């Protein structure tokens, strides 16, 4: 098992990652070879599974696609949707949806000038930095996620 995998295992068991699990922002689903599957819980009760490509972890950015919650196959219907602001990052309408962010491997393909920034190394815990970004996309109102139900009222 390579050093980058050891680092990934350490980051997945870090207090920061486990805090997100405890808060029900996300949950660890599986790790299969270079892929880590994380389920995200949106404030409207929907959930989405992100398949995170973590090969050459730390040296390379993580690459995210959302997959079907049942069969874990990629597809446009597996992606969260939102308004125009949301779409600045989450290109869910694209024929091949991707995340347009300078810490996403597939986003960087569209903006090669981002690669030199190595923005994914801004935080020492790379995967927590990534899942925190996705959490904010779903939970911070101004990011424009399409909250579908009224399951967000006060109690």
């Amino acid at each position, binding site marked *: 098992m390579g050093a980058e995998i050891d680092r990934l295992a350490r980051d997945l068991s870090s207090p920061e990652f486990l*805090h997100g699990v405890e808060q029900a922002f996300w949950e660890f689903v599986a790790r299969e070879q270079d892929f880590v599957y994380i389920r995200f819980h949106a404030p409207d009760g929907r959930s989405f599974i992100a398949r995170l490509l973590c090969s050459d972890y730390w040296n390379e950015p993580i690459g995210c696609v959302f997959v079907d919650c049942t069969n874990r196959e990629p597809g446009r219907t597996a992606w969260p949707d939102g308004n125009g602001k949301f779409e600045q990052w989450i290109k869910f309408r694209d024929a091949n949806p991707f995340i*347009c*962010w*300078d810490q996403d491997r597939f*986003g960087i393909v569209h903006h090669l000038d981002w690669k030199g920034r190595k923005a994914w190394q801004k935080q020492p815990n790379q995967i927590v930095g990534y899942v925190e970004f996705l959490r904010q996309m779903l939970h911070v*109102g101004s990011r424009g996620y399409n909250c579908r139900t009224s399951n967000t009222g*006060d109690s």
Partner: protein
Amino acid sequence: MSEHPDWYDRDQRRGELQTVSVHVHFESESATRQFLAKSTWRRVHRWGCKKFKVSSDACANLELRKDSPDGPALNESKEIGDHEEPLTVWLVKPGAEPNGR
């Protein structure tokens, strides 16, 4: 003779009315209020915005963090929960994230 009817469960009722002291910070301001333990953090968020006169647009751009501005985020769908000690939270604006637009 009991002052309550038979169906009244005093312990359960006490649990329902359990309150928690929450100290809310926003920029240089702060305020404290008692919230029901059964309230969600969303209620704290909205109360803080009202207390600190944050516009609704700006309020939607804030999130609650525990203990410090850089502390872990709190899920606003979750209940505050039962705590004996006062809690400290910060209303903060998440950092900007670049995108390709």
